[in-house]
């Protein structure tokens, strides 16, 4: 029974990319705007205790598909405004009363608004910027049911990032923190912080039609504090590191980005389904 209760409480953390580089590279021009559609998939049927994979007699699992519609408006190069609207489709098997129970839910998730303040430095063959981004997550997602989309809380986040680019090299470092508010029905996701690093090459570019490719490597590290025990949505706290390749293609004002984040390290507090690896595909347009 104790195991059942423990397993009932946990599953993996909700998708909550805290940083806000909606198309970090663009638009940097005054009165520029853009849209991005991003599909993200993650999930696993591995059950973890600490950093070890353990037997999974109830078939505990969780898989989440999120479609993000993201928009950005640039007042001038020093200030942008971003909005991210997720549509979440999630399914899991939770251990309830000593048996695996399949659950599923879908709907609009919590909308994230960000206000990136950027300071650019253009010098010769280098452009770089520092950015500080306060964000707020609005509880627009449903917090009802046994497998809610949202914990119903207002959350605030802060990201500090630096990117540097030459004709051949690209680097982005993004350190972020989310402070989670208290949600509905006693639910509260734990606070979290993370670091995202993108480094790589700009190996091909065609001046005639403004098209090209970036090949990057992503390293993402994240720490989640333990959630409120009554939380129905999220997992135990823990740490994880994901890493993998990123491919970006652009032509004129169109950009496509494919990304694989393989799970390199994971440690959960207590017992929890692993978050697994993550796959994303994005298409963006700027104007």
């Amino acid at each position, binding site marked *: 029974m104790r195991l059942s209760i423990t397993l009932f409480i946990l599953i993996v953390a909700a998708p909550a990319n805290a940083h806000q580089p909606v198309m970090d590279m663009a638009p940097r021009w005054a009165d520029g705007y853009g849209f991005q559609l991003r599909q993200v998939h993650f999930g696993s049927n591995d059950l973890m205790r600490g950093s070890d994979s353990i037997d999974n007699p109830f078939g505990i699992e969780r898989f989440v598909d999120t479609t993000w519609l993201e928009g950005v408006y640039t007042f001038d190069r020093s200030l942008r405004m971003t909005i991210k609207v997720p549509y979440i489709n999630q399914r899991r098997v939770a251990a309830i009363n000593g048996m695996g129970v399949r659950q599923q839910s879908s709907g609009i998730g919590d909308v994230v608004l960000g206000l990136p303040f950027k300071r650019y430095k*253009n010098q010769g063959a280098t452009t770089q910027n520092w950015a500080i981004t306060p964000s707020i997550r609005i509880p627009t997602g449903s917090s009802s049911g046994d497998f809610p989309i949202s914990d119903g809380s207002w959350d605030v986040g802060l990201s500090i990032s630096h990117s540097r680019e030459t004709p051949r090299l690209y680097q982005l470092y993004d350190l972020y923190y989310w402070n989670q508010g208290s949600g509905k029905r006693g639910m509260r996701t734990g606070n979290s912080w993370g670091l995202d690093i993108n480094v790589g090459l700009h190996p091909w570019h065609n*001046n005639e039609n*403004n098209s090209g490719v970036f090949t990057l490597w992503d390293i993402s590290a994240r720490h989640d504090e333990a959630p409120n025990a009554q939380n129905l949505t999220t997992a135990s706290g823990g740490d994880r590191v994901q890493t993998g390749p990123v491919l970006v293609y*652009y032509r004129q*004002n169109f950009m496509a980005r494919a990304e694989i984040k393989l799970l390199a390290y994971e440690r959960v507090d207590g017992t929890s389904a692993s978050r697994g690896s993550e796959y994303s595909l994005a298409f963006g347009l700027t104007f």
Partner: protein
Amino acid sequence: MSGKTIIAALLLLSAPVLASDFVVHVHGLVCSFCAHGVSKNVSKLPFIDQSKYTKGVKVEIENQKLTIAVSPDRDLDIPALFEAITSGGYDPVDIWTVTAAGELDELVEYKP
């Protein structure tokens, strides 16, 4: 008509157009996706000849060069050009005329 004559005639025909090209060095111009705003802003300027390059503008990220084509019947407005680049997110440094061979010719004097 010999081949040399044809080439000479073509050079003569193209010379006035090439003479109206200018190159701007732009600090940080290393990504054309990021520089879309510069291209957009500059191509909208009334003196740009949109029949050349991509709507009158060519970005070369390897050497941070922005080549613009100016209509033969219009005057280049450097303050407007530099403002279009600055509001596009980048910093213009200087502007040059271009020879018929496409090489930098003379630095254009400009005092903001």
